[in-house]
């Protein structure tokens, strides 16, 4: 299994608070991704990175920002959490752009 960890694994926060989720890899893969998974929608890409400090928006990027200052870490920040951002968030890594390996997920609840 690819070495990917996500932290925290579970978080409950209040509307309007900032939240940062962390993805850490030990595989030295170039690409890293953040997805959210919601019933009926499947996995939707939020942001991705193709190298240190190189990031781009995905399908549902509004309300989210990312940073990648080191190859191994990719951070997802919700500047001001809203109830619509309650979801399960998955990080994925890839050495080839299309074969992705996923982390265990973070369950975020915004009350």
């Amino acid at each position, binding site marked *: 299994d690819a070495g990917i960890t996500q932290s925290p694994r579970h978080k409950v926060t209040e509307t309007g608070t900032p939240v940062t989720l962390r993805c850490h890899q030990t595989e030295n893969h170039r*690409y890293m*991704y953040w*997805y959210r998974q919601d019933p*009926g*929608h*499947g*996995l*939707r*890409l939020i942001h*991705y990175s*193709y190298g240190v400090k190189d990031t781009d928006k995905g*399908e549902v990027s509004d309300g989210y920002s990312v940073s990648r200052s080191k190859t191994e870490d990719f951070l997802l920040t919700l500047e001001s959490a809203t109830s619509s951002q309650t979801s399960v968030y*998955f990080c*994925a890594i890839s050495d080839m*752009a*299309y*074969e*992705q*390996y*996923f*982390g*265990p*997920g973070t369950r975020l609840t915004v009350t």
Partner: protein
Amino acid sequence: TQLLEQSPQFLSIQEGENLTVYCNSSSVFSSLQWYRQEPGEGPVLLVTVVTGGEVKKLKRLTFQFGDARKDSSLHITAAQPGDTGLYLCAGDNNNDMRFGAGTRLTVKP
């Protein structure tokens, strides 16, 4: 609207039966992946298909990529309870990765 439509959404069968699930799109993809996801875990990559018409086998699982690279199917022979899970297809086009909503398969002993 999903770019990739998977059918059926839910499938419940008895152990030993065969089944096919589908992944359809109006878009052409450079490659298509199938993943399986179990509750509380991240998706796990099963296979990647790249060439139109390509067929790949993984033990009892057979994956086919459509000739026009717009659709794919997954056939499972003699399903087992261990095959239970959410099967997701994903299409890639120049790093624009899109996932279907999945087929939730339950195999009863």
